[in-house]
């Protein structure tokens, strides 16, 4: 505030420096107006940029920072959704009990396993698809658009269709398995089957998206690299291994990071995969992810304090994952 005032006050002296050339009748009306406008101009120059960027920061404060801090505050209390203003200080109890909360660790484990069995095949398939699409193909635009179609579908719609496909008694997948002599699989209630089914929704939805990212990166690889590789006698597979893959390294890293974050936030697919159990992720919580557990504690059981502690723990876990990613990417960059 003071600095603003001082700088705003300074210009008149500067302009006033030229003033003595004028008749010494004191500042005329015109001059005073000029001085005032000039002050305004200065202030404008100084503060307007802040005003222009302020919407982002205000929104961030209101919907980003404040909720984050308030969640942290709430996590130190016992507080229920039925009376959110009625807070009972419990210190770190909500955090300490997470250590022996079987449901939390079960959810963490599920998040990890579902994350792995959805991310790894997804990225491998995306790479393969991108490689195929990178060849000269007829109607390649059609294929590229088709790739992206699952991504454009809503999670809810996709999940509901997959639930029907994966039905135990009347689902199409079990029907198809029956044709080749495999007994009905209880997709919703068996631990691994249900996790694979949930992963398949994720894979279906995101493979095309990642394939397009890979494709874009592949098309940026100079053609002459391939030509010289071909001259050296490298076949397509060797070209892929020794030209394409190294060139894609930063892109692969990007997709891995994004997919990891996406996997750790997995929510919609498992929530809708067994709608009757809802947030509990199956009768035995066999596909309850951390996102679901957080939602269950906060919105089904109405324990906002516990949910907040889970949210902050997830936040910390994500930071750790972020650091690990950063370290790995630095190592990779250094080695290349």
């Amino acid at each position: 505030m003071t600095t603003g005032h001082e700088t705003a006050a300074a210009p008149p002296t500067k302009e006033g420096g030229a003033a003595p050339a004028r008749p010494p009748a004191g500042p005329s009306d015109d001059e005073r107006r000029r001085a005032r406008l000039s002050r305004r101009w200065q202030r404008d120059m100084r503060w307007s940029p802040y005003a222009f960027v302020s919407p982002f920061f205000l929104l961030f404060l209101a919907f980003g920072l404040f909720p984050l801090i308030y969640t942290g505050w709430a996590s130190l209390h016992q507080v229920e959704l039925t009376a959110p203003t009625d807070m009972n200080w419990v210190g770190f109890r909500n955090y300490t009990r997470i250590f022996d909360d079987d449901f939390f660790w079960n959810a963490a484990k599920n998040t990890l396993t579902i994350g792995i069995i959805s991310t790894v095949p997804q990225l491998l398939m995306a790479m393969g698809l991108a490689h195929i699409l990178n060849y000269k193909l007829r109607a390649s635009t059609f294929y590229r658009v088709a790739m992206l179609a699952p991504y454009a579908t809503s999670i809810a719609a996709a999940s509901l269709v997959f639930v029907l496909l994966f039905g135990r008694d009347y689902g199409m997948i079990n029907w198809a398995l029956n044709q080749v002599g495999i007994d009905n699989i209880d997709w919703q209630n068996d631990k691994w089957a249900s996790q694979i089914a949930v992963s398949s929704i994720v894979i279906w939805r995101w493979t095309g998206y990642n394939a397009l990212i890979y494709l874009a990166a592949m098309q940026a690889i100079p053609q002459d690299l391939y030509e010289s590789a071909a001259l050296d006698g490298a076949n397509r597979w060797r070209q892929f291994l020794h030209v394409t893959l190294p060139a894609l390294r930063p892109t692969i890293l990007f997709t891995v990071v994004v997919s990891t974050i996406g996997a750790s936030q997995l929510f919609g697919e498992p929530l809708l995969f067994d709608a009757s159990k809802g947030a509990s992720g199956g009768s035995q919580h066999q596909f309850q992810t951390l996102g679901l557990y957080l939602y269950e504690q906060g919105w089904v059981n109405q324990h906002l304090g516990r949910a907040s502690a889970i949210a902050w723990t997830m936040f910390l876990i994500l930071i750790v994952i972020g650091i690990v990613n950063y370290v790995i990417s630095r190592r990779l960059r250094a080695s290349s």
Partner: protein
Amino acid sequence: MRARTRTARRRVVVLAAVASLGAGLLAGCADDGKKDEGGSSSGGGGKTKITLGLFGTAGFEESGLYKEYEKLHPDVDIQQTVVERNENYYPALINHLTTNSGLQDIQMVEVGNIAEIVGTQSDKLLDLSKYGKKSDYLEWKWEQATTKDGATVGVGTDIGPMAICYRTDLFKAAGLPTDREEVGKLWAGDWNKLVDVGKQYKAKGPKGTTFLDSPGGLLQAIVSGEKERFYDASGKVIYKSNPAVKDAFDLTAQAAEDGLIGNQTQFQPAWDTTIANSKFAAMSCPPWMLGYIKGKSKPDAAGKWDIAQAPKSGNWGGSFLTVPKSGKNTEEAAKLAAWLTAPAQQAKLFGVQGSFPSTPAAYDSTEVKSAKNDMTGDAPIGTIFAEAAKNIPVQTIGPKDQIIQQGLTDNGVILVTQGKSAKDAWENAVKTIDNNLDQ
């Protein structure tokens, strides 16, 4: 210099314009918000608009009650928003109540949630005892929505007196009686007898069918006939130590283990398909279930169902209408709520929608007495359910009944149909419920 002044002035004008636009936008939002929240703005033509927030199939609109009310009160305009499932409706309602915003003029509350609403939100709700006539309603229904201080924050809509619906054709094929009186006698007074009938059915009934539809349905039926189940009168959670609950669980688990029950979760697509394909012979059946069966059955099932009294009467489902104080038309809304739940209207609702009245005066109306359902042919469903309603015990309900019930079914007995032992299933349910209840 002049140019500079002009730009400066222009800038001021532009800024002012932007500011006022922004303010206008904000104000516009605020205005809209208020309209939606209070639902109090006058609708087209200076009418008083009353909004209702409902879930599931309340059926007020379908049975023409809004139109009738609007005809009686030409200055009123009624609008409703319906959420399909209570699981999605209720958390939002709690959220709106605690922040006193986003509420409709009338909000429906399910019986599983009414204790929590009465216990924690009653200061946000209008006392409706001046509007509804206490003597019209079943006493326990009225009491469920009444606070300790005597404020009645909800008027009862329907109740769910439970009977057993059964397929006459499948019963006949299994060599069981089909007349509803005789069927009722097979298991009168004791759920164990019903399970025994299930064993007879299993021995002789058509292959590929089960006696009952789902473990959840049976457990719900048994438990909802108990006076005390999950909470005792002082409000303590007793579901774990209450022998009535454990016995019900064990009986259901045993029946599931013996293969008398289909391995389904109710209200799921696969369960719907078992209705359509006639895969089970009987199910616990509050009045609203008939509408559900009708919706999911193939046409050839019409008339093949019948209804017998359950071993013990219980109540499954039913709702209340509440009026949040934050609305601007609370007076009008309260009148509408009372009118919608008055005996004459409840009788009409039963005739069309199958929601059974919580007002005994309606039981003698022609609408209830002559009510029929396509699925049950000539069966006098009104009289049958009225009989069941008379025997419903006054039940102690608690704030987290829904969570406990859901834990027992979805994290408990269902596991027995998937090969778990009853003991493991019980432990899984208890662990889940305790974690869910722990604040």
